[in-house]
């Protein structure tokens, strides 16, 4: 009896203690922090700006993509070593989500609520990032330059803080289809797509140009099933001569390998997402000869084009700040994202707030390594709008032909004539 009573007292005492603790907490934003002073902006101090990202450093999508965030970080380090942005150094927190949407939920909440980042930058993946859009919107966190070409990032009314980066898959599909229409007239065109927004948006773009009956066979795959022989066999049976594929690198390689096995040799035109030569030849190993003649669009300079001043800059930064990691398209991608971010931060000015940053991105007009124009405006949150075709010849991927641009609706594919500008001599971004 006495024992029970003692136990009861202990429990009651604990509860009372916790209750007093709880009574002290206050959910309303504190008055000292609500004044809009620089100190009140999360993730920004007089000396530092904290940004965060979620990336697949492990798991099925890690191949290649795991190099993006370290490359961005290296470029930020380069800028930091040269004085930072308006005197502030950029701190880049990289969280691994393993391409698992549940992990993305956790790590993005951690970045925003615990690490108090100023903005989320370049979060990678359609299924992963879709899940955190609502959260980021409620928290009013700038969600910059999502590393995926889904059209979901371009919904300024619904998600005012989210911005895309690369050309969306519909734009890309239209540009590829336009190229095919002009250069492979009368040939049988087929489409291979990942069974999500990636494949669907791409097909929508292709059909916009070629018409619904312009694509003879449409096949889909899921990343969880690596046997795509049935799909490739269906292409062969349909007599496809050109196959446009919305595939990630692993499945571009798999498609080429599987097709070679059944002696099926169409012209492959994969999406830029899955067309980096260095990544693909690494995946194919001895079979990399299959990549010969591969045509794919790109929106950044090709990583092997060492005559390009942008590639020279990124190679230099890679050597000095990224441990000289094997240089490929992922590193170019990551560094250009960092370059664009620094441009946006500079444009937002010395009095850095989240509102300023969003307004700066919406004001648009950014120029960097991207071959086409950035489309950012108050009503358009999609990223780069132009692409250039590239071809593998003699084991070297090189861009050719004009830069073309279009939109994700019924607009024509037109030539983009503005000449590309080289980077500043010291490589530090300017607005």
């Amino acid at each position: 009896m006495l024992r029970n009573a003692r136990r009861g007292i202990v429990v009651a005492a604990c509860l009372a203690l916790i209750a007093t603790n709880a009574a002290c907490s206050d959910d309303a934003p504190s008055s000292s922090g609500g004044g809009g002073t620089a100190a009140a902006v999360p993730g920004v101090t007089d000396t530092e700006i904290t940004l965060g990202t979620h990336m697949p450093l492990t798991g099925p999508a890690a191949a290649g993509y795991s190099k993006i965030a370290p490359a961005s970080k290296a470029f930020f380090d380069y800028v930091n070593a040269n004085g930072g942005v308006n005197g502030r150094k950029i701190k880049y927190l990289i969280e691994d989500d393993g391409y698992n949407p549940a992990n993305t939920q956790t790590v993005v909440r951690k970045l925003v609520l615990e690490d108090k980042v100023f903005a989320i930058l370049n979060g990678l993946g359609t299924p992963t990032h879709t899940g955190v859009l609502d959260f980021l919107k409620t928290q009013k966190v700038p969600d910059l330059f999502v590393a995926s070409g889904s059209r979901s990032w371009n919904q300024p009314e619904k998600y005012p803080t989210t911005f895309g980066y690369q050309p969306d898959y519909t734009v890309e599909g239209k540009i590829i289809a336009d190229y095919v229409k002009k250069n492979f007239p009368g040939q049988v065109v087929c489409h291979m797509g990942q069974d999500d927004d990636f494949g669907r948006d791409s097909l929508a773009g292709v059909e916009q140009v070629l018409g619904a009956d312009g694509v003879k066979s449409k096949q889909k795959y899921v990343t969880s099933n690596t046997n795509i022989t049935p799909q490739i066999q269906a292409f062969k049976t349909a007599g496809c001569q050109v196959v446009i594929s919305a595939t990630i690198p692993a499945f571009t390689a798999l498609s080429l390998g599987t097709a070679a096995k059944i002696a099926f040799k169409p012209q492959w035109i994969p999406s830029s997402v899955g067309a980096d030569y260095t990544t693909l030849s690494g995946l194919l190993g001895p079979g990399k000869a299959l990549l010969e003649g591969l045509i794919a669009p790109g929106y950044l300079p090709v990583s092997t084009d060492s005559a390009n001043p942008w590639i020279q800059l990124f190679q230099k930064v890679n050597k000095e700040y990224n441990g000289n990691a094997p240089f490929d398209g992922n590193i170019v991608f990551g560094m250009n994202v960092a370059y664009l971010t620094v441009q946006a931060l500079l444009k937002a000015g010395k009095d850095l707030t989240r509102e300023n940053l969003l307004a700066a991105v919406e004001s648009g007009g950014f120029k960097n390594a991207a071959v086409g124009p950035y489309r950012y405006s108050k009503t358009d949150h999609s990223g780069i709008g132009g692409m250039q075709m590239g071809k593998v010849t003699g084991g070297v991927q090189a861009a050719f032909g004009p830069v073309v641009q279009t939109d994700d609706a019924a607009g024509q594919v037109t030539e983009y004539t503005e000449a590309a500008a080289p980077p500043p001599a010291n490589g530090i971004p300017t607005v």
Partner: protein
Amino acid sequence: MSTTNPARPAEQPQTVPVRPTRSPMSRFVVPRPLRPGQGSTLLRHLFWVAVAAAVVYFVSYGIDPFRNYQLATVAAYLCVTAGLTMLTGLNGQLSLGHGALMACGAYTVALAQNEFSDRDLFGPWRLPISLALGVLVAALAGALIGVCAARLRGPYLAGVTLAVALVVPAFTTRFADLFNADQGLSVYVDSPPAGLGPYFPPERWQAWIAIGAAMVSLLVVANLVNSRFGRSFKAVRDDEVAAKLVGIHVARTQVLAFVVSAACAGLGGGVLAVISQSVSPSVFGLTLSLNLLLAIVLGGLGSLFGAAWGALLLVLLPYLTTEVTRGFDLSPRLANKLEGNLPLAIFGLTLIVVMLVAPGGIQEAFRALGRTVRRRWRRT
């Protein structure tokens, strides 16, 4: 039934899931002396659940939103581990497919919630109904698997449940119109009730929902374990022949254990869908199923406190390993190699160390510690 008979009938070699001498699970079946005047089990459990809920309620006010989110995730996992530890620890059935059962609950909740909002049906009753549907669907799936499982033993049972875990992605791809393949569905979730104030953090609301669900499943499992059914579970686990001899319907008992455990998994999955506001097959893959098993073994097999430790570990270990990794200052070259892999290595190392230090799980280690302290106390 606590003493396992070393001289088993020789003609029944296939029914030896546990070692003939004292099995690691048999410590749970040591009959405790009945304490007179303790009152009804249900009331006692209700009291402790109320106390725990009150403590967590107050705790949720004292911590920041991200900790609340973690608390909610722990509670969601606790729903599952409580049911799984009963199934594996007390009934001796090994399931590698509980991730799939969670998926049943999660997808049902997602579809129900989205259906409600599509039809403009609003109200506080929506979430409980969706969760109940999730539990129902998971329980039905559990009944189906349970019926198969009751015929299988040891590795064969593990094989069937493994197949269940693997079938989830294929299923969502096959019926892509409904489940949206790999990309999954987003789940419509109401914001916290307006009565809680304009600055009420949604994470705390989620934590309350999750804790409510965890308390319900803990209550159900705790009561079941302490009832006639619980004793049948243990009897079946220890010796099926002996259990049959005392009149226990072995298959029925096993199916019941599986259904209850599946219902708990469905509840946990549904709550997880609500917390993360999205469902997709990669969340409920084989890794999750294996992690759940790992959690209950690491926490202490067969004990509900062990299940709680396990749920805590599932959330905290990945978090802490990443935090530890951030503390290292690596050169860029090394960082490129280790980024992402180092947390995994630390995770694995931690598991090995825990298993070496506390082979019976964390709860057992605490019990042993308590015994030692008490012995010392008495000696002085």
